[in-house]
């Protein structure tokens, strides 16, 4: 990147470091921070949508739907979510391929599960084996996002379900007294009011989501953990112009600091948002704050 980088062996330590930190591989490392932010930007609203769906289902009067919604919320409670991550990545992939297989190759007569193999016809493979590398990467990222959204959707469903029940009963009764239908009461009275109750839980969830992003590594995405391991490992002078010992401790220290800063900034921002939302809402705001203080 810099002009003096042409011969690294002759440099003093400050310049050497400047050159070292701007190699092409390090650019990948910096881009992977963008991957993490992108994941957060896509997952947060998707998970919220999943959560909203789950909470609505759990409130449903039709018992199979409500049972399904409640099971979705309850499952995450007892099982480590890393297990969910590892499970969904394979399960989703196989589910997609299975559906495509049924649609695209109807006259395939062999079983799909043959012993330890999962065999679908070539046209049903996802992504197609002829697809370029970037399609594979995008598909992997897409599956990861979906996995995160399903798991965190269950968490946010729990928060939203609680928030919906926290809206004072009198508000809903008033709406009924005005002759609103169940649907109207839900969309016009319940949903606008529940956010103040949901925000403490949702901001907690946002912090948890930030801290779950390194698990992308387990889902096979080349994220910051992957590059920190890759770049930090002992660099042999035969293969690189910038040989160094085992620096993985330092790389992970950098990641640690990155996450500390990120969560701290989020915390400050969310505090401000809460203060702004509750400002002027003497009743609900006061109740939400009292609830937060008591929880």
């Amino acid at each position: 990147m810099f002009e003096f980088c042409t011969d690294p062996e002759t440099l003093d330590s400050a310049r050497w470091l400047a050159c070292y930190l701007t190699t092409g591989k390090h650019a990948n490392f910096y881009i992977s921070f963008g991957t993490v932010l992108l994941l957060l930007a896509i997952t947060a609203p998707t998970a919220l949508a999943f959560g909203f769906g789950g909470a609505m289902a759990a409130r449903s009067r039709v018992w199979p739907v409500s049972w399904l919604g409640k099971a979705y919320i309850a499952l995450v409670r007892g099982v480590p979510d890393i297990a969910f991550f590892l499970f969904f990545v394979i399960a989703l992939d196989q589910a997609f391929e299975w559906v495509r297989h049924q649609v695209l190759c109807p006259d395939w007569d062999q079983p799909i599960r043959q012993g330890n193999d999962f065999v679908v016809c070539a046209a049903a493979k996802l992504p197609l084996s002829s697809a370029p590398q970037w399609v594979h990467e995008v598909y992997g990222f897409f599956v990861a996002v979906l996995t995160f959204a399903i798991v965190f959707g269950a968490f946010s469903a729990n928060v939203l379900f609680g928030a919906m029940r926290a809206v004072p009963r009198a508000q809903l009764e008033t709406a009924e007294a005005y002759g609103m239908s169940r649907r109207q009461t839900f969309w016009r009275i319940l949903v606008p009011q529940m956010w103040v109750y949901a925000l403490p839980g949702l901001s907690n969830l946002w912090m948890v989501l930030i801290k779950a992003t390194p698990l992308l590594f387990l889902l096979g995405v080349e994220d910051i953990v992957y590059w920190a391991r890759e770049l930090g490992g002992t660099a042999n002078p035969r293969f690189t112009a910038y040989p160094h010992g085992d620096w993985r401790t330092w790389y992970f220290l950098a990641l640690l600091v990155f996450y500390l800063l990120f969560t701290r900034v989020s915390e400050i921002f969310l505090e401000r948002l809460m203060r702004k939302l509750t400002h002027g809402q003497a009743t609900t705001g006061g109740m939400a704050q009292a609830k937060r203080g008591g929880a």
Partner: protein
Amino acid sequence: MSCWQTIQDYALRSLGIGERLLPREDFTLCEQVTLIGSGLLWNIYFGTLALLAGFFLATAVAVGKGARNRPVRKLSEWFIFVFRGSPLFIQFFFAYFLFLSLKSHVAFFDPFTSAWLGALIVLFLNTAAYSGEIFHGALRAIPKGDVEAADAYGFSGWSRFRRIVWPTMLRLAWPAYTNEAIFLFHATTLVFFSGFPAWRQKGDALYYANYFADKTFNPFVPYPILAGYFILLTLVIITLFGLINRRLNRHLPQEARRGLRLRVNVIR
């Protein structure tokens, strides 16, 4: 091979007792249940020891965070901030590579790079930080009247803390602390995915579940087995903590006793 034989071979495999080679093909349901259950021993080991040791440090940190002495207070605040503000996954990686580089200088750090000690220390510090924050909140919620009554009875210093403040703190913090315990046990599944090597394939429940899923390419059997084990484990924890909760609240009138009301608060 009968299921009984499998249990004899693999029930303690995660500790290195029994058959050395893991099954390689034609996995039976029995093998999967036995091996994943065997791995659960590690989860219980990590969770129990970290929780027990973390409990004492958490109390110290909670008191430290409320201390009037500025260095003590700052130290406790930073301890809690660092361990609660960063992902456990990164903490594991960092600790592992730190111990690895220390090992090359000082032979004393040799055992620290193994999961049984290194990961245990990280989990211990992590749970101490989370529980410390819970206890600190409870300390601030202790009714003023309780402390005043203690003063009136002539309690002071250590005996006031030991007899009045500490039991009340535990009583108030217990529901949240139960949650923390549940999620600590869940967090133990991260250990063997974060640098710490599973020496001779002695791993935890998720390690074996992942092994089977990789080998059979069928996630629909091992992961539900794992889920079943963890739901059982969670129920055991809730029962045990519920018993302690009953004892902590035994002096209160029946009406005022609060059952354990648990909230979802997920991983770190």
